[in-house]
């Protein structure tokens, strides 16, 4: 903890520049940034040829802890995060018990403090009747509302109940935006015989309708809103027209990378998630929206289910796929394809999540910032293989694909947690501090 680490000759990356330099880390903080930094007691890490990023923040993961130890837990999930260069995560409340009261939140934080290898915080899950908790539970990422039902039984589908949550309090509200009424109607009226039906049942119309409601409520009550995993060109254009300073949104790497129907041909129900992966028209719209700033950041929606569960066929198989370990390599692979720059990736995966969630002292390589750092080899190629992953479910939708650009070292609060396949587990991550709305 008290050791001094000097990262020498790395290429320090921010959203606006890439510059050769050194970083000095003392007591878990960055204390100097510049050229030729000298320190008599520092352990020197030669980062020549590596890019040095502010630690990646993943603002949407499901680590299934407590309740589903066969899928994931806070230890294995955080280990997968470290291997993926992710130094901080916000975890979702649809666990068992759900994180819908003070005790559940406290238990989660306590458990994370003892097992999580990287920094953590949690969303408070909204129900129709826990407003007091949502607005007073201290230091959480935000309030999560499932407007459409997904994994678990957390759901606030009634628009009056949703409005009540928007009307009281100031804390950020993150929504899973799918309209439950349309989902139910489609489930009742459409065939559900193969996974190809999944994006039809969970239609772009359902996503748009819920996003419209959330945006309308945010404007009515001037409430900070984050639209989780935008998946459709329809939401993109609606957000382009109506987004204001109170509203932000995210997209997952899998919605940027994959497209229907090909992804379902290749992966079947293993590609099934909510909201679903849609066709190329939507995928291209999401890519452009990210470039245009209509979508603000990347989140993985890491949502593991076991291979046995995923093999149940459609519609019995649960929705969700792991991703925290592969998000950065996927975004860097798309960078190599010419879609965007490394600086943009840093903006979307490091700076913006910190800014949007008012995370204190993270997201930037600056003096005084927490020493959460991801060192990457931009050219390293590695083929993703099921069975060789850190996530407990040990499969990936990218199985068999060679991704280019991998994290080499992950540093959390000044401690090396991951280094080229090796983990250093004695020191744990810390609770992420969220600056409250004033």
């Amino acid at each position, binding site marked *: 903890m008290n050791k001094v680490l000097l990262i020498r000759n790395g290429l320090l990356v921010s959203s606006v520049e890439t510059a050769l330099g050194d970083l000095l880390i003392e007591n878990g903080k960055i204390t100097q940034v510049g050229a030729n930094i000298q320190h008599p007691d520092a352990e020197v890490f030669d980062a020549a040829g590596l890019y040095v990023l502010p630690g990646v923040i993943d603002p949407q993961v499901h680590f299934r802890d407590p309740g589903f130890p066969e899928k994931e837990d806070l230890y294995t999930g955080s280990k997968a995060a470290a291997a993926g260069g992710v130094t901080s995560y916000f975890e979702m409340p649809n666990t068992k018990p759900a994180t819908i009261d003070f005790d559940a939140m406290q238990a989660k934080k306590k458990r994370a403090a003892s097992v999580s290898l990287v920094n953590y915080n949690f969303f408070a899950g909204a129900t129709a009747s826990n407003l007091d908790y949502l607005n007073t539970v201290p230091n959480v990422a935000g309030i999560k509302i499932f407007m459409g039902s997904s994994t678990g039984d957390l759901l606030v589908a009634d628009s009056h109940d949703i409005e009540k949550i928007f009307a009281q309090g100031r804390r950020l509200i993150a929504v899973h935006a799918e309209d439950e009424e349309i989902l139910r109607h489609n489930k009742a009226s459409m065939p559900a015989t193969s996974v190809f039906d999944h994006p039809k049942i969970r239609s772009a119309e359902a996503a748009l309708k819920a996003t419209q409601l959330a945006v309308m409520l945010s404007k009515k009550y001037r409430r900070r809103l984050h639209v989780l995993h935008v998946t459709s060109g*329809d939401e993109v254009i609606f957000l*382009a027209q109506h*987004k204001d300073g109170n509203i932000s949104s995210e997209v997952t790497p899998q919605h940027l990378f994959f497209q229907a129907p090909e992804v379902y041909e290749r992966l079947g129900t293993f590609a099934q998630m909510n909201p679903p992966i849609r066709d190329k*028209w939507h995928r291209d719209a999401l890519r*452009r929206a990210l470039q245009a700033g209509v979508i603000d950041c990347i989140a993985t929606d890491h949502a593991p289910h076991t291979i046995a569960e995923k093999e149940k066929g459609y519609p019995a198989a649960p929705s969700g796929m792991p991703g925290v370990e592969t998000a950065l390599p996927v975004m860097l692979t798309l960078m190599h394809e010419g879609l965007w720059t490394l600086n943009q990736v840093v903006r979307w995966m490091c700076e913006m999540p910190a800014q949007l969630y008012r995370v204190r002292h993270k997201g930037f390589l600056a003096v005084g910032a927490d020493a959460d750092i991801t060192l990457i080899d931009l050219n390293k190629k590695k083929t993703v293989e099921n069975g060789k992953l850190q996530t407990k479910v040990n499969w990936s939708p990218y199985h068999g694909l060679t991704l280019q650009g991998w994290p080499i070292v992950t540093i959390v609060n000044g401690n090396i947690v991951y280094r080229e396949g090796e983990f250093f587990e004695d020191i744990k991550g810390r609770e992420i501090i969220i600056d409250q709305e004033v």
Partner: protein
Amino acid sequence: MQHRSVLSAGQFTRHDLDHLLALSAKLERDLKTRRMIPLLDEYILATLFFEPSTRTRLSFESAMHRLGGRVISTVGVQFSSLAKGETLFDTLKMVEAYSDICAIRHPVEGASRIAAQSIAIPVINAGDGAGEHPTQALLDLYTIEKHKQISSRKQRVAFIGDIKYGRTIHSLIQLLWHYDTELVFISPEELRLPQKYREMLSRRDIPILETDRIAAVQDCDVAYVTRIQEERFADHREYEKFRDSYIVDRELVECCKPGLIVMHPLPRLTEVSTDIDNHPAAVYFDQAQNGLYVRMALLLVLLEVEY
């Protein structure tokens, strides 16, 4: 051109259009180095505007002046003998005696056709009621050709807003069907394309998509935006909802296919946000200026003066 008058966008052949576009381009190019191309110094244009339209009238008059011709005009029905009860026919006979060509705008659909049948000089329809506006369609086509080269590359053209009553749209689609194109009509249910035009397009095998989703603009090459007028709606709240749903702004444009151009016949209200005025996609001011070159080309062709 077969007719010596311009009455409907539907009258043009592809050959006519190729000629007019080439001539317009030549005039635009030459006017970069010259202020006047005095080929019509022996001719007089009469502009008869029985309803107000500053832009179209000024553009016709400027076109005639740039060609060295003279203009006589009547603006506002209250000053003309029409106010004293003279028939349109009698007015036109006088105009025929005083000028060599006339541009007419009239609130009654078909007025320009009656005019053309009444007099021997060429008549240009400068907009007749809910009917057609063929010179606007020509300048729109010229703008699409100039920015997107529709004569050599397939273009997906989106029309956004009032597809039902938008006469510039009704005229433009009759030109576009001479080209390799796909048309996307984006409007509220209440303002959809009239059946007549749907059938015309289907006879010519032009693929069309009709939707109320503004998101459909994203993979188009051209976004042609028109004003949604409040009087089309019974309910003010409905109007506001649609007005706000069909706004094209900077962020929307940046979410669209690169190279998209945004057109508007002007004047606009809020449907095209001023925040894209300086964006490369915004071509509506250029579009308005193109009216000059296209109308110059038409005057030359109709008066059979070579250039």
